[in-house]
């Protein structure tokens, strides 16, 4: 097990990753690689998700019933599993988003205003 500090960070990232995945799927179903690419694009390269963590997260979300997966053909003619939001997932997305905003706000109060983007 990594150190306790890493532990906390990992759980932080896990929660965030779930959020990012759900958000990406709002715009339509995607396969794993596509999700990774979208996250990278939409975050403007802040996040580069390694496929290991991604698939683990997708598995977790699938187990919880927030996404479901179907086999399809990707744009380069390969078979891939496409993930889509379930209704439950959509609901969770809303919850998690508001939760995130709240916490972000709270953190900002303590940490001071964010530096403006470069």
């Amino acid at each position, binding site marked *: *097990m*990594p*150190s*306790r*500090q*890493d532990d906390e*960070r*990992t759980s*932080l*990232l896990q929660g965030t990753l779930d959020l990012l995945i759900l958000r990406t799927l709002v715009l339509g179903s995607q396969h794993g690689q596509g999700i990774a690419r979208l996250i990278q694009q939409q975050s403007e*390269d*802040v*996040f*580069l*998700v*390694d496929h*290991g*963590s991604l698939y683990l997260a997708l598995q977790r979300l699938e187990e919880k019933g927030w996404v479901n997966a179907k086999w399809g053909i990707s744009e*380069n003619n390969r078979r891939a599993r496409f993930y889509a939001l379930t209704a439950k997932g959509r609901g969770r997305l809303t919850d998690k988003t508001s939760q995130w905003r709240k916490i972000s706000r709270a953190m900002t109060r303590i940490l001071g205003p964010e530096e403006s983007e470069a």
Partner: protein
Amino acid sequence: MAWYLRWRNVFRDDALSTELDAELAYHLAETADRLIEAGMPEAAALIAARRQLGNYTIQKERARDMNVATWLDQLRADAVYGIRQLKQSPGFTAVAVLSLALGIGANAAIFQLVNAIRLKLLPVKDPEQLVVVDWNKDSARAGSWSTRSANFTYTQWDVLQAQQKAFSDMIAWSASQFDLTSGGEPRFAQGLYVSGSFFPALGVGAELGRTLGASDDNATCNAGAVISDAFWHREFGGDPRALGRRLMLNGYPVPVIGVTPPSFFGVEVGHRYDVAIPLCADRLMAEDHKGRIPGRADWWLSIMARLKPGWTVKSASAYLSAISPTVMRMTLPEDYKPGLAKKYLADKLNAKEADNGVSDIREGSENALNLLLSITGLVLLIACANLANLLLARATVREPEIAVRLAIGASRWRVVRQLLAESLILAVSGAVLGVFVAYALTRGLIALLETPDSPTFLSLSWDWRVLAFTAGLAIGTCLLFGLVPALRSTVLSPAAAMRASGRTATAGRERFGLRRALVTGQVALSLLLLVGALLFVRSFHKLLTTDAGFSREDVVVVQIDFSKASYPETQRLTVYRNLIERLAAMPGVISAAQVGFAPVSGSGWDNSIGPENTPAAGSNKQAWFNRAGPGYFKTMGIGLLAGREFTDHDRAASAKVAIVNEEFARKYFHGINPVGHTFHLEMGAGKPEPLFQIVGLVRNTKYYDLKEEFRPIGFFPVAQDEHPGPGMNVVLRIAGSPGSIIRGAKTAIAGVSSSISMQIRMFSEQLSDSMRGERAMAILSGAFGALAACLATLGLYGVMSYMVARRRKEIGIRMALGADRRRVVQLVLKEAVLLLAIGLAAGVALSLWTAQLAQKLLFGVQPRDALSLGGAVALLSAIAMLAGYIPARRAAAGDPMSAVRIE
């Protein structure tokens, strides 16, 4: 460093506990205060506060456990994580562990030899107190030396014992070989003559029976034999009833009185004794029943001593030097000429450390072992470079994962530690496997160096030194190949790393420069090793083919010992003739001749001479001698340049004659034809110098060693030997299968008398034995050179593949735009050639610079031999180009479109 604080906390447990208690107590108090301020009654407030705070103990535990447990936990986690990562790339792991095993194993094997030969202490009581008594350099002595490490005469042993007061004990011994049979084919046991003080002073007891004591080595000499544990098992199968059984030692029966424990092998490193009998027994076993004890010029003993408390090696040495004049005076041999006697009386003795015993193989092997250790060290370095390269490549692949971990706050040190854990697992696995490699390698090495005549025994058990060495190697290599990649892959700023995949970021560029540097380094080092290998191989080849002056093939050497047949001296010449006639008569034998001792057999006889009428004594003109029978030179294929061979007319009564070689003529007769000229031979004090007439001139031949320069050699007829010995050597020139001839010879000789023992060998085998050191070096350096080249090639291949992969898009585009295959391949190869060229240049420079180190071990080849250098460069280039070509071909052969399309 936070980690040691964690350990410290383990011991500070109580203090920590109390502090934490106090902290939580305060928190509790404040919380309760708050509740009280809000209106809760005090008691209830305390309860509520306590409940809110949770269980004290749990929190205390959590805080405290973080110390050791976290650390151990982390260690375990790192190990598990590392193993998992390695399991995911089995190919890489296998190659890595294998190359480490070979590298570490080879080093451990050589170090084991170094340890056994130089470092290990003797398995006796208090070895640090032992010293060996020796002569100062350039001491003047003359006489006959009859065994290895023969250093003292018996008279000197007596005198030293009586005169000295620096030592609490003194021991003397002499190595010998005892023939255990009574005739026919001899079977030898490694023997030791030992003083009565030998076993007691060394503190060696018997595991069966008893060892020799002072009462066994006296004038009456009821000789008993102490045997080693190994011999006991070999000869008697470990039977306790061996006690009392009689051993035949050179025909003399001696009862077994004891067996020493398995750990004791004697005091000479590199040899193991079988049978030990008291010094006094030399008299009993000698043919003249006097032996070497009375002779003041018979050198056959070695002496060691145990320091008295308070004495050091230095003080003992100075003491021995001080009493030397007395000792020399009391032991001066009677027949020394005045000049020699004066020098002898000025000789000085000294004492040297002997906690690791004495060894005749130590000096000879030092150079070779050091060189081998350097070679294996370089091979390991190359293997590490390979691993570093591989790890750097893997790190690139894992960049994103590492970057994210860094981004979410894992400390850099933490990630580096995790990566290092993987390296450590590899290193440790390699070391463990390396132990087995070392085991096999050491056994193989010893087998390579042994001969039937001189079995080498080394106590190769693993002691703390070898273990420490191997462990140190494991850790060292781990740091060497693991640290830099680990540091490198964590230095990048996460943002930069996230941009790096697929596109070239500056950080990526730098890292690749390191890999290129590593590969060029590997190429340079393997070139060095290949050059070394070629040098040794060529050296060995030269030795095999050098003109030794005599035929190497189709000659059989027969060593005959008829001492047990008890022929009187007067009859011996007849016996010689009889045996030679029988041997010459055998089918397949073209000619047979007697010789004093065969060339390159380790025996020799040197003497001073005086050309023409000059006296030999004090002439400083030295020559080496041998005895030869009629037809010797023809049999051995030694060219006769002038004059004649010895004939049957050269008898004891006729004029004294001699045959000399070219070097003799050149040195002492100014190169003219010496046939017809004469020379005097120096004899002992008081004896006249006989005059010899030279009747023949022969070509130069090697005397002791194939490697040596030709010496001045003179031959005397066997028939003119005033004291023919109870043994003879015969050389046979044969045609046909040696096997049947050897069998025939045994029968022929047995037919004369069954008490004659003989040893028959092909002369070529004997020569081959004398070259075993060179052969071993050639084989080993060749093997390591090949290994190094393979590793370097693997490294080059890896880097090339990576380069090709990186430029796939570029290559794909070029090919899509119409570039033909060949151009593309050339493009990729250009980089390979550049790397190779730089590496080779560096390697050549390195070779030229370090070449001198191998000088002493080479024969007939200069250390800066152009042929070896060129050959190595060509060989390495060829293999390396192949390594570069394959990925290049693959790149060019790939479908261009698939490369261009973004994955």
